[in-house]
């Protein structure tokens, strides 16, 4: 038993030593550690304000890409899911098209560039799709006609590790079921 404890102790010391060697944690980061207050938040039960539940989807729905300028991709900033001002005209044209085609339903795909971690990108992609959906609901579209899916970083449209490829891959994509 003593030996095991001793091993553990030495092990921890080795880790701390390795850490100091590796120079992990710049001075700036240490400052940040000190200045941030501990954060304890009580989550309030119940659906949050502004949540718009997704309606159950029919298994028969097949969403296809319409080769129309109406359904241009919208894009996002790195690690963000806020709808950008420059994509508002696209979302307005999608909303207008949905008003003219009252039986159509839209699947909003959320995608990410390769730079984040795989798991977080999956969550981020969903948040991007949900943000676009929320915007369309704000434009008066029935939320039951809008559903979402995240592909995270699984389906890039542009290959390569360039800023141009990344910005194309951070996107919301619209597919339509009639």
């Amino acid at each position, binding site marked *: *038993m003593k030996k095991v404890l001793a091993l553990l102790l030495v092990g921890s010391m080795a880790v701390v030593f390795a*850490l100091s060697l590796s120079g992990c944690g710049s001075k700036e980061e240490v400052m940040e550690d000190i200045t941030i207050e501990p954060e304890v938040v009580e989550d309030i039960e119940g659906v949050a304000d502004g949540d718009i539940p997704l309606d159950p989807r029919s298994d028969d729905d097949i969403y296809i890409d319409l080769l129309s300028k109406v359904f241009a991709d919208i894009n996002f900033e790195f690690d963000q899911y806020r709808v950008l001002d420059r994509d508002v005209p696209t979302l307005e044209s999608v909303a207008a098209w949905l008003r003219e085609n009252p039986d159509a339903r839209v699947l909003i795909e959320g995608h990410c560039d390769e730079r984040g971690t795989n798991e977080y990108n999956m969550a981020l992609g969903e*948040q991007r799709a*949900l943000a676009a959906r929320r915007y369309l609901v704000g434009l008066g579209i029935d939320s039951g006609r809008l559903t979402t899916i995240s592909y995270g970083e699984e389906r890039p449209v542009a290959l390569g590790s360039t800023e141009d490829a990344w910005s194309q891959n951070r996107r919301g994509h619209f597919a339509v079921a009639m």
Partner: protein
Amino acid sequence: MKGRAKLGSMRFSRVVPYVLSAAVLLAVSGAADARDVYLNIEKGFGEKITVALPLFEGAGGMVDASNIRDVLMFDLSNSGHFSVVENLEFVDETEAADRATGSVAFPEWIALGGEILVKGAFEAGLSEFSLEAMVYDLGQGKAILGRKYAGEAGRWRDVVHSLSNDIVALIAGEQGIALTKIAFVSNVTGTKQIYVMDYDGENRRRITRDDLLAIYPDWFPDGKRLAYTRYRNQRQEACIVSVTSGVVQKLTSFPGLNAFVAVSPRGGDLAMSLSRDGNTEIYRLQADGANPKRLTFGRSTESSPCWSPDGRRIAFVSDRSGSPQIYVMNSTGGTVERLTYRGGYNTSPDWSPEGDLIAYTSKVDGVFQICTVDVETKEVVRLTTGWEDKEDPSWAPDGRHLVYSMESGGKSNLYMLDIYELEPLRLTSGGGDYLSPAWSF
């Protein structure tokens, strides 16, 4: 440490199906008195016990003595408690002399630097592989373990792993990890599918076969089933796949996200992210996917839940502060406490089997590294270096080893890391990416 074997209490293999039990204990004088042996070899700080591993006696079709020694050497060195006597030429000469005299030349073995000696004989038949091993405490000049093992010929490595685990249990007093498995995702066939391999990277086998994009495997504690997420008909489905039969059973297919299924330590509950209420949140469900109960509330993103080993808490990722950070809450919801403060991108937590640490991925100077945070003190320790991105750590049941993926040259591979020795060992190679590892219980 959790899972530490009581000294002197032998463990039999979980995997080898017909290891004979009491009948196979060979006649060893004083074998039951393992406690004395253990104390006798107790050493100073951090030193390892040196073990001499002569080639086992025997022959057979597909396995030779050096294959067996390679497995034992890997298992014992990797356990963190042993160093293997390196001069194999002298080791094998000494063994040859022992065989000629029919005895154990304890002074010779000690002169080679050995403290423990493992001798054995094997038979590699067409259908069965069997092994008989003796473990000697050289200082005391006596045998401390004698045991016979057998298994299917195709699973001879598991038979040898069983011996390794017994040696680790006897000498180090811990349950070894030599029979554990690692589940992961790979795109070697084109589409990402779920695979399982032995903990040392051997015996890789494909588990999902439907060619539907499959991600994020997580073990049920029975070691026979994996929860994961797949894409079918333009939707995500959380599923269970049987590792033995490959049969897939659907858990959830809510509209939106159905991802990051984390099985509770006893297997009775699931935690996962769903977006069915219009936002990405953590839910708790029954093990069959029924009765989802929402645990987090707000407009932020809540993802990647993992359970504490006692099942009472859940760690997860939230961007409620403006950047992804690790948080902890009770597994029934309620108060949420932030754990990580250093760095602006902390994701993919995994809770250690001892409950004290959470391993996670942290962006440090633009590169994703593997770190741990102490759940009580919030002290952060960085475990990896170098410019390559690493992510998705998963703990071995010994609380000492982690497996994670590292991207290099455009390809991701899996690496094993002993957190006390910090020398990563590559487990996968060839033909695609290897991602999202999950170490079995």
